[in-house]
């Protein structure tokens, strides 16, 4: 190995390399041209990218549509339900669900239901209903029927579908007072669905403010907030709910109790969100653009609210979407324990509260139907949240 290894570099004694700079104007497109498709992707805004990514998750899109539809229905609950949800049909107590028929005696009659014959079974002491195959109850659309007060304000009697007053038309059966379950479920959606939204708004606000302060200031603020979160997370939620809702005086009106419960649900839910905000801020606050903002003279609240939080807002929204179901379930749990909402306010939790003994499962199983919308909504929120979370990071 006497020979020196040859180097790839030019030898030192060669002539100095000529340094060349072209004067011609440089046009990027001459080197690399973007196809129209590429252009579309490269120049798309972040929101557009997120939308494309979101659209890929088919189930999430459909869940979103489903939720939009049923949230829209909340505005017209009274119109959509066939009866006023509080009307007691004393002749029809514990009626099982009825089926809609189209043909009577081989003749097309339009949608109708059969009238019911009632018989008291003296052995089991229950009412038994049988279909009266001779008499039919025709259904009409966009008709005037049972009276109601829309949102407690405007009175009206228009319904999407209804039967003549006094005739039986209970698609999902009736409860122990003869109230129509379908109408009650539709009405309950208003409370149950909005409870999640208001609760999440409260917890969102608290989470961003408290978590933001902890992450931005660090130091002792962070210490205190961390301890508070730890404490709240180390106590089971049910006792907390219980005692907080026991504070609300019984003299409060149902509406006040409703708001009280949403606030309780929100007050105990912010910890997870605050943690997420805090850990994000801890890493983001060292970025150059934060320093720049501070040098220009922006205050902490502006830096947090204007520069830092929007950077991961999409993540927050996605995680908030997944916690809405917790609130809806929390409300049902509270109502089950008799500490949630009370009649006459009707929520899915209140409805399920009536389905809590084994007799119901055995004899009146249709009283458990309110669980179906609960399950559907919760699953939809979960899928929507999944899709949003994927979309929140469109560059992946």
């Amino acid at each position, binding site marked *: 190995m006497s020979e020196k290894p040859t180097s790839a570099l030019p030898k030192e004694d060669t002539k100095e390399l000529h340094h060349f700079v072209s004067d011609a104007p440089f046009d990027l497109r001459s080197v690399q041209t973007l196809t129209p498709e590429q252009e579309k992707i490269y120049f798309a805004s972040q929101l557009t990218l997120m939308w494309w990514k979101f659209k890929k998750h088919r*189930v999430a899109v459909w869940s979103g549509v489903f939720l939009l539809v049923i949230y829209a229905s909340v505005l017209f609950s009274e119109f959509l339900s066939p009866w006023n949800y509080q009307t007691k049909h004393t002749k029809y107590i514990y009626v099982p669900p009825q089926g809609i028929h189209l043909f009577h005696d081989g003749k097309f009659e339009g949608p109708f239901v059969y009238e019911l014959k009632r018989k008291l079974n003296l052995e089991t002491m229950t009412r038994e209903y049988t279909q009266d195959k001779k008499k039919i109850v025709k259904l009409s659309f966009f008709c005037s029927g049972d009276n109601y007060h829309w949102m407690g304000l405007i009175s009206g009697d228009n319904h999407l579908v209804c039967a003549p007053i006094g005739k039986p038309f209970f698609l999902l059966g009736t409860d122990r007072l003869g109230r129509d379950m379908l109408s009650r479920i539709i009405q309950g959606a208003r409370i149950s669905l909005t409870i999640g939204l208001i609760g999440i708004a409260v917890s969102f606000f608290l989470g961003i403010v408290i978590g933001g302060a902890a992450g931005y200031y660090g130091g002792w603020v962070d210490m205190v907030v961390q*301890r*508070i979160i*730890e*404490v*709240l*997370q*180390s*106590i*089971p*939620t*049910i*006792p*907390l709910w*219980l*005692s*907080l809702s*026991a*504070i609300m*005086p019984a003299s409060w009106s149902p509406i006040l109790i409703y708001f009280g419960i949403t606030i309780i649900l929100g007050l105990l839910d912010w910890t997870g969100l605050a943690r997420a905000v805090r850990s994000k801020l801890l890493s983001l606050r060292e970025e150059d653009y934060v320093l720049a903002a501070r040098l220009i003279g922006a205050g902490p609240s502006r830096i947090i609210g204007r520069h830092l939080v929007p950077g991961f807002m999409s993540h927050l929204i996605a995680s908030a979407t997944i916690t809405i*179901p917790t609130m809806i*379930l929390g409300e*049902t*749990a509270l109502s*089950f*324990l008799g500490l949630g909402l009370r009649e006459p306010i009707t929520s899915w939790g209140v409805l*399920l509260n009536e*389905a*809590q*003994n*084994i007799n*119901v*499962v*055995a004899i009146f199983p249709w009283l*458990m139907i309110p*669980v179906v919308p*609960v*399950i559907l909504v*919760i*699953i939809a929120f*979960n*899928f929507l949240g999944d899709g949003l979370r994927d979309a929140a990071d469109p560059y992946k």
Partner: protein
Amino acid sequence: MIPTLVLASIVIFTIIQLPPGDYVESYIGELLAAGESVDLERVEYLRAEYGLDQPMWKRYLLWITNFVQGDFGYSFENQRPVSEVVGNRLWLTILVSFATIILTWVIAFPIGIYSATHQYSWGDYGLTFLGLLGLATPNFLLALVMMYFAQTIFGVSIGGLMDKEFIDQPMSWPKFWSVLEHLIVPTVVIGTAGTAAMIRRIRANLLDELEKQYVITARAKGVPPFKALVKYPLRMSLNFFVADIGSLLPSIISGAEIVSIVLSLQTTGPLLITALKSQDMYLAGSFLMFLATLTVIGVLLSDIALGFLDPRIRLQGGADK
């Protein structure tokens, strides 16, 4: 850890005191409702005996110093020391919680791993959907329905934690078997919600790991697929899981409370809820405090375990301080 516990004790005490009135008042209310007369002297005597006439901070100090010394106070309603009332039930609660946690793991692990390795397949969608179904069904209703079916189809009465003839009997194999039989439904019901959450988190964490370059390298150099999955990615994705062990307890106990009421289990759940409702403050307070302590210890243990599992966390933590 100590500051957290002090803070927790203050929070718990305030929460218990928050509802208006005290136990004596609700006791009097009960007496009046039953048509009995109440004389004021007796009321004052009761108040003084239970320390209810003291200002709140004094009561708090009294309670917490006793608690630290192992005296958990006196249950008004049961007329017995709290440690006696809670004692037996606590073991059952721990048994149910423990069984639930094991069940959750046994179900969630394989499903989570399968979903992550078969992302967007029918199996993934189907299993995720099943998990969500468990998450979405209110626990108490599921408990009711399962109780009904267990009775009508299998002929097993599943209320309570054991068959009636075994209550107050010494431990024996038949009794143990009976307890086991009765444990199935509660653990399944309580576990459903947790399982779904666990599946999704295992799936998400494992997916994050599987995308990393070292996995590709491992595959490229011919590491068998199973080993390439288990050796590092799975281990890394377990961090969250260990970190969660501590905080699992409160949520399981919350879930167990409602289910216990439906199934009339002799656990601490129903006890706690009646205590809270009737303002039996030492019972509720000491029990909650006990849970909080358990949780804080659990979090501490899981932090230590995390340090062992992933040396990076241990080293980073040291550098920060």
